[in-house]
């Protein structure tokens, strides 16, 4: 299972990358895309939406099931990636290049409290 060491993670299977401007890119992990199977539909939050931590804010649907995506930390949506809504299969092909949305965090220190790669790996067992 691919779990890059330079990213942060949530127990609900989002990955989080801190960009140079301080915003956070959010996507779903390799484990999540494998468990969901072929993705066929992605719905993203509106730009400007204010999110609470752990708030459901996006949806992915695979051939098998629908699943919510949660905000890893509180903040405001400042960008969304139309590439994943246009071609959801890209998320299966390259989950860590396929960011869903970017958040300007309410508290820049909050990201440090997310899981690191080792801790995330522990939450998914040997999968």
């Amino acid at each position, binding site marked *: 299972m691919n779990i890059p060491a330079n990213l942060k993670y949530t127990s609900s299977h989002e990955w989080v990358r801190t960009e140079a401007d301080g915003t956070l890119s959010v996507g779903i992990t390799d484990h999540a895309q494998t468990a969901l199977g072929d993705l066929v*539909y992605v719905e993203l939050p509106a730009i400007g939406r204010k999110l609470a931590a752990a708030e459901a804010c996006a949806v992915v649907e695979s051939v098998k099931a*629908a699943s919510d995506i949660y905000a890893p930390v509180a903040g405001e949506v400042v960008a969304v990636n139309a590439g994943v809504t246009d071609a959801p299969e890209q998320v299966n092909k390259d989950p860590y290049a396929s960011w869903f949305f970017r958040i300007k965090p309410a508290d820049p220190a909050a990201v440090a409290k997310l899981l690191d790669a080792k801790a995330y790996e522990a939450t998914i067992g040997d999968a």
Partner: protein
Amino acid sequence: MLKQTPLNAIHRAAGARMVDFGGWDMPVNYGSQIDEHHAVRNDAGMFDVSHMRGVDLRGDARSGGVRGFLSYALANNVDKLKNPGKALYSCLLKPDGTVIDDLIVYFLREDYFRLVVNAGTADKDIAWFRQLLAERAPHLTLTPRTDLAMIAIQGPNARTKVWRALPGSESVASGLKPFTAATMASAWGELFLARTGYTGEDGLEIMIPAPHVGELWQALVAAGVRPAGLGARDTLRLEAGMNLYGQDMDETVSPLESGLGWTVDLASPRDFVGKAALLARPPTRQLAGLVLVDRGGVLRAHQPVHTGKGDGEITSGTFSPTLNQSIALARLPADVAVGDTVRVVVRDRELAARVVKPPFARNGKACVSLMP
């Protein structure tokens, strides 16, 4: 402890993602469900269907024999089976006209018919058959064929690849018409080859003594047949407009409200289990096809459907890889018509869907238009 087919270790070695399917540990995909789906529509794929149960019925002509018994036990009419090898799809009904299971029955000889029933319902089916046999034809013998495994090879190139993988099969089975079967002797024991399936594509279903099914599977892989999981099996059967027992019909609905009226023989004077109940209660609902018109999600089982004639519910829904759009079967009021637009509740929204007549796709091609 989940039950395993004899191919379990081969699936795991091939990297299959395994799931609990009605108590069986089965492959849902070997990587990409959509790729496996397209392989079956466009080339050749195969499914381990060893969890399904063959059941043999044998016995002489007393009390009407096997044919007379099945004529009463099944909703479709086995008198349609005139030539040895011919198969028939039928529902098995309760006296109240609801559906115990759906199955395929093969006429092999007057004293020998074979049924193939669903995995999750096999035990209750067999118990029901035994009860009916005790009442009507106790001299017949019923034998669950747990000694046999089964592979379904499906797709436009499926049969040609079987001829390559299985020496001697071409001369035995190339002349088979759809919905007929033949047996052949082989080094692995007697094989049963049927030109049947659950995908809307041409192909064969092969029953083989369980200890040898791995050898047949590997020979088929070597001949270019792509292993496919239950995920692709579900999208293929739904595109083909075929019901899934337990989802599209069960012991709460009649076959006449499940799109299966064509399999129920109400015209002949023959009596059968459930007939009186079906005649007494004309259908008020139908099983219709839906194609999603709006973007906004995927149709799924149990989503509510609002129509101008009343409400209904989706029984099976998925994303159709062939149509590149979401499709469903839905139980709707009987007077909703093909071409009507209905509203489906998908999460927190109502999305428009169009009523169509299944199948959605068969033989490699779409059968419905996405445009109204």
